């Protein structure tokens, strides 16, 4: 900051008088409005609401809302951020930058979880849930014991591992002094060799008709294989739903609700709305942009019958290579069964 102020331009700007008289536009913000929007948390915890959360509650809440993308142990699913581990890797090639190894302030974790998470359901967590999630993230980083309780009272005491790991932009001293000079125009070096070619790495996206067709063939093979494995379908019967199972499904559906809505007024969010999904042909939610993988399987006639839905929700990415759904799959058969029953209860 002080460095920045040394710049003469900046000093001039501040020296220009700021006039008090205005245009009389806008209206005064009400305290309730400021309270609703001004929720940022500062280093040290300024701005935190009263509340607390322990590691074990955090584990449950994390499993419900966060594990879909970040993994049960905050290890990160696919390309989603890893939140735990990576200590002492920052000087290595490909450093692992996690909450534990890299983030300099605990306030940032609370602030971000509270305002921006869960993905597709932001700003819905209660303060105690946020405290619990943050406590669990610390636990998953081995930074606290399992009996740790985080609250607005002990928040400021907490020191992050990499708190001292940052320096303010020093390019003016370390770079500009070297690179502000007369440019060389001739004989700037003795020889030039190509040392690396992008074509060798070959990661540039290509859109070709051939490749898309090939991918579709691959997908359709999968559909066929799944169909063979699936038990022969009985004629559709409107079976009575088990209310207990539906209730259990509603609970288990929490895992899905970060991305999916179901019920009255359900809309497409990160995932499509799921009303009437059981028994429906795949890819039918109006206005939802499905993955190419799902579109291809839908074209092959994929129907969300119980067998296909079970296979999909057990291992989504195995059933549908290239699916946009980031969920890793239900581990408990009872949860899966319940969610399917719950979805059945939301027919069109």
């Amino acid at each position, binding site marked *: *900051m002080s460095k*920045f102020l040394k710049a003469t331009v900046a000093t001039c*700007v*501040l020296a220009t008088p*700021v*006039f*008090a008289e*205005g*245009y009389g*536009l*806008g*209206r*005064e*913000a009400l305290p309730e*409005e400021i309270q609703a*929007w*001004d929720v*940022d948390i*500062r*280093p040290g915890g300024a701005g935190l609401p009263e509340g607390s959360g322990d590691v074990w509650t955090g584990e449950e809440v994390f499993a419900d809302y966060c594990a879909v993308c970040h993994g049960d142990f905050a290890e990160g699913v696919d*390309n989603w951020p890893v939140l735990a581990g990576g200590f002492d890797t*920052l000087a*290595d090639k490909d*450093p692992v930058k996690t909450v534990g190894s*890299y*983030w300099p*302030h605990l306030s*940032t974790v609370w*602030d971000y979880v509270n305002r921006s998470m869960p*993905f*597709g359901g932001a700003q819905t967590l209660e303060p105690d849930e946020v405290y619990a999630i943050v406590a669990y993230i610390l636990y998953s980083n081995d930074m606290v014991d399992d009996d740790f309780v985080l609250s607005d009272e002990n928040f400021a005491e907490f020191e992050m591992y990499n708190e001292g790991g*940052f*320096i303010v932009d*020093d*390019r003016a001293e370390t*770079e*500009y002094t070297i690179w*502000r*000079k007369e*440019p*060389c*125009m*001739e004989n*700037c070096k003795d*020889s*030039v060799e*190509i040392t*690396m*070619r*992008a*074509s060798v*790495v070959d*990661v*540039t*996206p*290509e*859109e070709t008709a051939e490749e898309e067709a090939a991918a579709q063939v691959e997908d359709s093979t999968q559909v066929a294989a799944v169909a063979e494995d699936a038990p022969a379908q009985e004629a559709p019967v409107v079976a009575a739903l088990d209310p207990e199972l539906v209730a259990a499904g509603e609970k288990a559906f929490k895992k899905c609700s970060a991305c999916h809505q179901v019920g009255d007024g359900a809309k497409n969010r*990160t995932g499509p709305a799921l009303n009437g999904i059981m028994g429906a042909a795949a890819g039918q939610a109006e206005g939802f942009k499905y993955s190419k993988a799902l579109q291809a399987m839908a074209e092959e006639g994929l129907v969300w019958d119980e067998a296909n839905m079970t296979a999909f929700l057990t291992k989504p990415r195995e059933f549908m290579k290239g699916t*946009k759904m*980031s969920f890793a799959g239900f581990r408990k058969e009872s949860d899966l069964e319940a969610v399917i029953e719950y979805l059945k209860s939301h027919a069109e």
Partner: protein
Amino acid sequence: MSDPTQTSRRAFLRGSAAALAGGAATAASAGTPDPLITEVQSWASGLGEGVDETPYGLPIEFESDVVRRNVPWLTADPISSINFTPIHALDGTITPQGCAFERHHSGAIELRKEDYRLMINGLVDTPLVFTYADLERFPRENHVYFCECAANTGMEWAGAQLNGVQFTHGMIHNMEYSGVSLRTLLEEAGLDAAGDLADKWVYVEGADASSNGRSIPMEKALDDVLVAFKANGEALRKEHGYPVRLVVPGWEGNMWVKWLRRIEVMDGPVESREETSKYTDVLADGTARKWTWVMDAKSVITSPSPQAPITHGAGPLVITGLAWSGHGKITRVDVSKDGGITWETARLGKAEEDSKALTRFYLDTEWNGEDWLLQARAMDETGYIQPTKDQLREVRGENSIYHNNCIQTWHITPDGEAENVEVS
């Protein structure tokens, strides 16, 4: 020529010279009369579309390959991701909104002007709420600025990786913004309550689910930051923050908060996620730079390049590209054809007053099938010369993601193709 819509996109993306050479060759051979001239063509005889056909037009179908593209393996989900401006196919300096890169963290939301509110609170004399209509009643300014994502060229740190200038340098756009200076709005709320402004900050925050927020020192906030509601003369596109976004000239794109909903005057930075865990630069020893806001001088040749190969054979060739600097004006761009041994100065096709805006450069030259290692090197009004990748690595190591403003090399082969390479 076959129907362009049927042509494999591979031809455009890899820039197969052969796929495009046919038409050019016909026009150039003088022996036989060109039927396009000697015969009456359908468009010269029949009728085109009426004025009631297209209330708001898209580019003609023949330009359908000039689109934003993304790199699927880069991110976990296209909703929190980035795409790239097709700079290989554009000229001049203004980026049309419809193909200007997008980066969002929770998707491009739809927020009506009627539902738009902007709050200014914190260390101000009177916390205020503005509607969209209120903003339009403040004195307005127009400025052209580039917006570059700090991660532009970030995938190239470890070596030449992506074969296309759209992918290596396409996280940039350049628009003419209309809006109100942030200074005007802060003055409206009154800054007496803030006391000494030298150590004050403003925190700016978006209305979308990501609630992207960044802290900006008061000096910058009072200098040239704009609260913009029009770009290139029309409303912002939803993917660029409709109805209102922040414009932070010369500074990294993440600070240009879209769907701007709140400005808080503070006595220190928030240290939000996007200014600690992201948009910080890990150096070789593991320490990280923070607050690296300014985008240093950078340039790149957009044609010829892997997606825009030389298709016309030997003879006159226009080498063109873009240069920009977050420190101000571009004063000079040099081009090398031999990988940096010798350089010649390019012609700037620019308006003199452009500062913190894209500058177009041209080198009108001749190519006769030589092997070239083509590079561009920008210089800005502070005398800063764009460094090589090796120079950057020497200072920063190889673990950075952001702020890679190195000199780019394209290998032009005798068949006119171009490839992304790294040279010694």
